[in-house]
């Protein structure tokens, strides 16, 4: 019992260690970016580009301010609702289309066209269609995100290994079992890529929509800071948005992907960590 608990703890520790270790490379890259930022600041001065130090002090101030949870909450709710809707609708519709060759042929060009529409155009349209309420930010995220998940799911289902499907059929596996054991694991690798893109764009698009429609949240704060020419606040809110996007990607999607796709490291030179 105690040994089992210790073993589990050891495994969790090893996993965390690996996770943090893989973060080092990322951190090194980020520091290069900060250095370039500092250089830009020294060349152009505070009014164009506030120093990283100045910005991070402002970020800290923002994060600790009493109004922050409410502001962040509004944006988070919109971004995550939009993401959930986009990922849900896009994945289910795309997977269904992937099974039907005719549907795929018809929908593929449509999706390609829709994917080509820039998010900013969706914001303008959503503002016209839904007014400047909660709905337009969410709708924009959905409109921008659905085609990404749709395309990923369609590609995932269409490229499933039919020989594995045939194998499953010889064992009398039902359609549901075959989907769960043969198609889904393959589909998931496409979906994680699509969802990562979608969740990243969800934050950006939400903030953009909020800024344009002036409906509070992080985008609203950004609009205010801009109006007041509070440049450190502008850069600080940008940093906050990036932090949100990073948290949802590395804090939520990545760990799930690691757990679900453990088998993938089996074909890597260092193998599966057990």
């Amino acid at each position, binding site marked *: 019992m105690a040994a089992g608990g210790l073993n589990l703890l050891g495994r969790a520790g090893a996993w965390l260690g690996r996770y943090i270790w893989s973060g080092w490379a990322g951190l090194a890259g980020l520091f290069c970016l900060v250095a370039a930022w500092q250089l830009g600041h020294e060349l152009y001065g505070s009014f164009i580009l506030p120093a990283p130090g100045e910005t991070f002090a402002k970020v800290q101030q923002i994060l600790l301010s009493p109004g922050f949870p409410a502001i962040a909450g509004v944006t988070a709710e919109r971004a995550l609702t939009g993401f959930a809707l986009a990922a849900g609708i896009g994945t289910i519709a795309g997977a269904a289309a992937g099974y039907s060759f005719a549907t795929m042929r018809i929908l593929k060009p449509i999706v390609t066209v829709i994917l080509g529409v820039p998010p900013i155009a969706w914001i303008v349209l959503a503002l016209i269609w839904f007014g400047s309420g909660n709905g337009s930010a969410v709708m924009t995220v959905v409109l921008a995100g659905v085609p990404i998940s749709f395309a990923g799911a369609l590609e995932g289902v269409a490229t499933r290994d039919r*020989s594995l499907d*045939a194998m499953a*059929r*010889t*064992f*009398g596996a039902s359609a549901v*079992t075959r989907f769960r054991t043969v198609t889904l694991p393959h589909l998931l690798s496409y979906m994680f890529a699509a969802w990562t893109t979608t969740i990243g764009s969800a934050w950006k698009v939400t903030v953009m929509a909020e800024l344009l429609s002036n409906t509070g949240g992080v985008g609203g704060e950004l609009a205010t800071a801009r109006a007041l020419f509070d440049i450190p606040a502008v850069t600080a809110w940008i940093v906050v948005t990036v932090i949100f996007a990073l948290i949802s990607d590395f804090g939520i999607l990545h760990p799930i992907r690691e757990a679900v796709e453990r*088998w993938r490291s*089996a074909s890597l030179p260092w193998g599966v960590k057990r």
Partner: protein
Amino acid sequence: MKLALHGVGHSFLGRSVFEGFQLTLGEGEVVALLGPSGCGKTTILQIAAGLIEPLRGRVERAYRRHAVVFQEPRLLPWQTTLANIGYGLAASGMSRSLRDAQAAARARDVGLLPEDFDKYPAELSGGMRQRAAVARALAVDPDVVLFDEPFTAVDVGLKRALQDLVIAAAETRSFSAIFVTHDLSEAVRVADRLILLSGEDGRVLDSRQVAGQRGRRSDREIFDMVDSWSREPEFAELFDPRRQS
């Protein structure tokens, strides 16, 4: 009779592969289906397995379960070896613990070691993967096993070991089997009877009983049979280099 194909014919895109194919698989019998590449062996096997509906003729089945061993292992890359071996059992709704026990027993039968059970297919050698594929087929306790050139891709030494494994399993678990191959000596080793298909039109060129009991034939006997048969004109196609894929 376990399985019978009556006057089966099939075409792909209007091009006929074979017509009027007749086969009756007896209880406990192993029939080798021989023929050069592209003559329709896989198609016949897929029809027998119910993977494709024949355009002409009908298939008669008098058994509970069948299993197929494909040319490639066709293991699920995202499942461990043990889960892969238990796949057929899982598909029929057996509980996890029961199926793991049964899969482990079959895994040991085919010479896999317990330390391999938790590995993913990518971590197994080619031979181990094909062993796992054989174990997966045997795990469902099939009455009929359909082999589609299962050992073509493995090296000679291992091929022999895997053939012995199939011979032994057919003995102890008493299943009937169709064993597709383009290797005459493999057919003579594992089968009771062999059917030779033509590479030209998929017609049956020859059908004959293999002397002696399967698994008890000596290497000498096998060599002599292969040597004398390969001189017969019917078998010429099988050894024609232009017909090898």
